[in-house]
Each structure stands twice: as C-alpha cells, then as structure tokens.
C-alpha cells in the first residue's frame, strides 16, 4: 500500500497479511503509518497504489459502509459513539431492527442488546446512556457493535491506552475469546507488556514501510523495539534516584467530599514520586485538587514550607506548580494555535511589558525550549494539533519549563506517545528532578512507575493506601491498589 498526503508520504510500502482466527499485533511509532493502513482497510481512505485482498479476492473499499459490509470493523482509539444515546441504541446505530412504517423497534433493540451483553458477560446494561460510561465502558460498546455487525475482522486501535490494568485484562479476555471463535483481530498498541500476553503474530511498521513480520514465538521484545525505532535502544530505561533535598510540596489532610479522603503527602526537591492506583482511585482528582481546578473541602497545601491558598490554577501556577494533564487535546493544548503560542501560554508576563508582547523575547524563549526538548516541528508557527502525540506532550511540558515551574504534576505523561518520545519524557523528568524540581507522576502502567519513580504512593478509593519504595514489584503495587477494592465498576 502507498499513500501520500500532499508532500508527506504516510505509507511508502505497507504490507500486512492477517490470517483467520489470529491476533495480529501492529506496532510502530507514531507516524509510522499504522493508522493510515488501518483507515484504508476500513474504507475511510483510498490508497494511491497497492492491492487489497479479502478472503482471497481482490477488493477495494470506497467507503466505511463497504468495508463494514464485507465484515471489517474498527474499534477506535477515540470513541465514535453518540453520547446521548443508550448502549443498545449505539450498538445498533445505522442498522436498527425495523418496525413497519420506517419506525424503529425500540423494545427489540433493547432485547437484542441485552442478549448480546449477557452472551459476552460484559459489565454493561443495555439501557445505560453512553455519556455516563467511562472510557472502558465505551470501548466495550464499540466491541459489541462490531460483534453485532457479524464482523470477521476487528481492528483495535490502541484499545487499552485509556484503560486501567484490570480493565485492560478484561479487554484481553474478550479479544482472546473472539479469536477462539474464529474472528481475526488486528491490534495496534504502544504498550509493550501487552504483546506477550496477546499476540499470535506481529508486524512492525517504520516510516511508512513494513520492516518486520514474524510469529510472536520467534521474536523478543528487544527485537521489536529495535525494529520500531530503527536504532538500538537501552531496552529498559531506569532512573538513578538521588538523595531528596528540601521539601517542595506538602499536602495535609486534603479532603474532597466523595472523591478524596485525608490525603497527606510530601514531595522533595530532586524526587520523582509515582502515584499508582486503579481507574477511579482518585489520582487525577488529587492532581486537579492540588492544582486548584476542583475546590477542596478541607486540608492545607504547603509550598516550600509556606502555607498557600490555592483556589484556581492561577494560584497554583503562581506558587510554582505545573500540571501536565492526562488529556492533552482537551486540557493541555489549544490545538488550533501555533506551537509558539501554546508554549508561551503560562509565561506571557515574562515576555511582555505593560501588557504588550515583545516578539523578539517570545521567539528566544520558544526556540530555547524547543531545542531543550528536542521538539520536532517544522517551525514555531506550526499548528500544535498537527504534531505527533509525543511532540504535543513536549509542547505542554515546554510551557512549564518556560514558566520556570518547580513542582511538576505529570498525569499519565506517556499515554499515547511512542517509545522514543516516552523515554525522552522520562529523561526530562529526571533532568527536572536533578535541577531541583519535585515531580509527581501518575501512571497506570506499573512498569513505567518502576522505571521512573523513587517511591510510589498507591491510591485506593480516594485514600493513599500505601507508600512503597521505588524498587518494589508490580504485584506489590497491585495488591495495595486492589485490596478490598472488589471488582471494578466500569461505570
């Protein structure tokens, strides 16, 4: 397959062969051409050259409907559901059981959905409104939709990137069950630890070319990483902790009704502290409360030994804090604006006098940060939304570097970015700590926490359930995170 967009070659030589009843992993860094290849399969884009064979016959899919009709279904990274409709309505959207006179058979829609959900033991109710579901629940709905369409090839685009470990395991279970019934599955992922558990065969794309295909048994994770990045890379990044310095942030008895209960923690200069927990344990909520986004009901926050009142992000920023939010597109970036404007958003005071901007100073600050971050953008005027996930993340981080923040709250900093960028982000966190900053990092990937954190706080049901040393094990973290927690609710 070949596909170019204007002057950019997205796919140079994309080859992929998927067999009946296998889980085929598709790996590659952002921009390697995975999504383009999948969009061609799903009929969302037309290739410039190349052939497509479906069950032995040459085909071409002019639009998503044709591809779906043939039996291809895609579970999208960002949910494409109608949020105001119910689970059942979403499952049968576009192919509602028909009643006479062009009306929709509501009761049958609901019953069919109920049966489908029971068959697959999904923790869902057919009459729930999709809006109220979390990311995991939404993905289950998308999977059900694909099943209901009788699809024989299912494409998962990073299905677990927004799920907790327990939820991911649930998705794995479903994927395996579908494979065992003869469905073929293409599975795009960034999470290396998922590979062993899930894949039968693997294909690696790099710079628009298929560079490697093999059975999972015939290859190693290190090999795969090497094929993805095209250069040898230390297989595992491991931060060397340094002795903690002065106290930077202290949180005392922080309460937020129904969400956070009696949270106390300290961050020191030079430290990277991990924050683990299942989805809904309150990690993101803790970051939001410390940063002044959500009001707190009780408790105090101290910065460098002084009590501070934080009622808005503005107060937090003035106290030297920085939040790198979980959802970059929603909370981090003005995606329609240039890189430079995004990067300067928190520090315009420093490049202006009496409210008037000094464009030369702006330029200096932006180019300095872009160089420090190894930012790959064509120019500071490039629109931020067009950068890859990793580079978008760098822009958000750069905003706080430009500001000179000293307390960093990273919420899932490596989510949805490729391995090369991930390690760059970890290095940067290490560099910040070595420069005297304190870093708190929320992550759902235990491996990441073990690589980066000096110590790990585990949250459970709004409390800090345990504090573990950095050299702990995944099992230990999970034990504290899930203890007495019961099975997780999807909703």
């Amino acid at each position, binding site marked *: 397959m070949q596909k170019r967009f204007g002057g950019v070659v997205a796919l140079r030589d994309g080859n992929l062969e998927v067999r009946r009843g296998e889980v085929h992993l598709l790996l590659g860094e952002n921009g390697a051409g995975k999504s383009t290849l999948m969009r061609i399969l799903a009929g969302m884009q037309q290739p410039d050259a190349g052939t497509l064979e479906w069950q032995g016959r040459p085909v071409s899919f002019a639009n998503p409907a044709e591809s779906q009709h043939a039996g291809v279904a895609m579970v999208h990274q960002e949910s494409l559901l109608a949020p105001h409709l119910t689970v059942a309505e979403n499952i049968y959207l576009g192919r509602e059981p028909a009643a006479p006179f062009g009306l929709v058979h509501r009761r049958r829609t609901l019953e069919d959905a109920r049966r489908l959900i029971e068959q697959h033991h999904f923790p869902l109710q057919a009459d729930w409104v999709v809006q109220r579901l979390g990311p995991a629940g939404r993905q289950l709905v998308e999977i059900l939709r694909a099943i209901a369409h009788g699809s024989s090839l299912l494409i998962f685009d990073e299905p677990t990137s927004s799920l907790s470990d327990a939820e991911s395991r649930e998705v794995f279970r479903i994927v395996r069950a579908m494979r065992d019934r003869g469905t073929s599955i293409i599975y795009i992922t960034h999470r290396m630890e998922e590979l062993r558990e899930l894949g039968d065969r693997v294909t690696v794309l790099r710079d628009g070319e298929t560079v490697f295909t093999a059975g999972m048994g015939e290859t190693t994770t290190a090999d795969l990483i090497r094929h993805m990045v095209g250069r040898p890379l230390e297989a595992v990044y491991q931060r060397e902790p340094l002795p903690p310095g002065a106290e930077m942030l202290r949180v005392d008895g922080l309460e937020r009704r129904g969400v956070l209960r009696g949270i106390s923690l300290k961050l020191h200069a030079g430290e990277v502290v991990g924050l683990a927990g299942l989805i809904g344990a309150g990690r993101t909520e803790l970051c939001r409360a410390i940063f002044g986004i959500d009001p707190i009901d009780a408790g105090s926050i101290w910065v460098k030994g002084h009590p501070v009142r934080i009622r808005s992000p*503005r107060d937090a920023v003035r106290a030297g804090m920085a939040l790198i939010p979980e959802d970059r597109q929603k909370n981090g970036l003005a995606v329609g604006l240039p890189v430079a404007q995004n990067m300067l958003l928190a520090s315009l005071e420093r490049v202006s006098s009496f409210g*008037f901007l000094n464009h030369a100073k702006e330029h200096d600050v932006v180019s300095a940060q872009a160089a420090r971050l190894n930012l790959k953008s064509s120019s500071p005027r490039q629109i931020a939304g067009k950068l890859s996930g990793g580079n978008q993340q760098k822009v958000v981080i750069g905003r706080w570097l430009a500001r000179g923040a000293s307390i960093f709250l990273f919420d899932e900093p490596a989510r949805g970015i490729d391995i090369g960028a991930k390690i760059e982000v970890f290095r940067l966190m290490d560099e910040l700590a070595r420069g005297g900053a304190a870093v708190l990092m929320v992550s759902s990937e235990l491996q990441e926490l073990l690589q980066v954190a000096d110590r790990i706080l585990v949250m459970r049901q709004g409390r800090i359930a345990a504090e573990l040393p950095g050299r702990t094990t995944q099992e230990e973290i999970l034990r504290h995170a899930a203890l007495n927690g019961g099975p997780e609710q999807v909703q």
Partner: protein
Amino acid sequence: MIQRLLPFLTLIALFAGLSLATPHFLTVVNLAAVIRQTAVINIIALGMTMVIIAGGIDLSVGSIMALCGLLGAMTVGQGQPILVGLAVGLLTGVACGLVNGLLVTKLRINPFIVTLGTLGIYRGVCLIISGGLPIQNMPKGFAFLGEGAILHIPFVLYVLFACAAGVHMLLEHTRMGRYAFAIGSNAEAAFYAGIPVSFHVTAIYAAGGLLTGLAGMVETSRLMTGQPTAGQGYELQAIAAVVIGGGSLRGGEGSVVGTLIGAYIMGLLSNGSDLLGISPYLQQAIIGAVIILAVVLDELRKRRMAA
C-alpha cells in the same frame, strides 16, 4: 497563499468591476457615502471580531448600539457638552458588554442565549426610556462625528482606522489578545495554564461594548436622531463581516484586516447593487449567498491544509 488572499482579491475585483460597470461608483461623493454608510457596522464588527476570537458571540450589539445612541443623544439634547454625551454613550456600551460578559462567565450560560436575552432586554430599555419616540434636539456641532470631513475624507474613516489599529494592536501584540485566541481555541486548556479566563472573557465583551457604543454615537450623529429602534439586524451583518474575513464561530480564529475586508465586500455589494439598479430584495439574497460562499471557500482551504 492565493486562497488566503481570496477575500482581499474579491474586494479588489469588486472595486474594479464596479468602477468599470458604472460611472457613478468611482466618485468622491459615492465613495464617501459608502464609507459613512458602512462605518457603523464596521466599528461594531471590530468588537465582534474580538468576541468571536475569544469563542463568544454577541447578538445584542444592535440593541446596545441603540441604547448608547439614545442615552448619548438625551445627554447632548439636555445641553451637556458633546464630549460628555460621547462619554455617556461609550460608558453605556461598556456597561452593557460587561453585563453580557458577567452573565456568560459567572452563570456559565451559553453566550448565544445570554445575548439573545439581552438583545431583547436592552431594546426594551430603549423603548421604555424614550417612550418609543426618537430624540432630536441636538446641537449642530454633534453632526461632525458622523458627517464631518478632514481633508475631504469622512471623519468616520479616521475613527474606523483608529479603532482598527487599536483592536489589531490588542489582538496581535498584547497579552490579552493572546489569551483571547487561547481561550477561543480551548478555554479549558487556557484555564489549566493558569489564565484568569473569566476575567478576560468579561473584559473582551466590555471592549466589544465600548466599540458598539462608539458605533451608536456615530449613527446618532449621522442621523442627528437618537432612535430607540436603531441597529436592528446589525448583529448579523457584523457577524457576517467577521466570518467572511476568516473568523471562525468555533473561536480562536479571526483578524482585524479580514473583518474590514469582509465588511467592505458587503458594503460594496450593497452600494453596487444600488448603483446598478438591482432590486434591494435581490441584494439581500446576493449578500446571503456571498456569506455562505466565503465560509465554504475558507473551510475548503483549511481542510486542504489539514490533509
């Protein structure tokens, strides 16, 4: 690049076309008339540009304009100095904009709804305080703002350019302008970055109100009448000017130069139609079609850039 210049080229083509089509177009008298007729809408459109860039919209500008003109006229009519009347008009505009901004930010109501409501409220206030009757007894000197000329160029053109320069300065060279773009592009991200979003949004509505107040005084001066029913439908013309000039109702996009070009395209279309004897009924349809066409072309350009 050519597509980006399309509105400008359209304006030039329109200008050239009309110059050739009718001898009555390229005359000092006609051009001065165009400038005077469009000045009011253009000044309002400058304020609207800021509001739309910041992700808002103000449907109440027509009513604000009438209220400002009315109060200004009453002040001058009671024998106060012209400058005092002017100040009353401008401050009324600021106050109305401030109310809009506070309703949008404090109550977190969609600006479309808020200003749809205040459109009615401000108009009602106009009718109540005037008893529905126009106010006319103004001193002769007051006509200079709308009808005067310096070096044969209508005074309102200087006023318009001064406003345009001010708004351009604000949008492109100040912190507040930068924040306006950021808030319009992604208000949540701006809030997360520590920007006092509510303050800036309110300030932008107030600044828009100031310009609308000025427009109200120009209109009153032109007609030498404070009309409680003035400015009806102006909001749509101002929004159209912003949108033809590349502004996006989703926020985060727009420019002063674009808005002025958009405003003058509409002004020339209307003037040209008059000169060429095209029915005013058809004029409305033409201008409507141009609005849609302009937005379609701009969308196509953006989509091509995105691909």
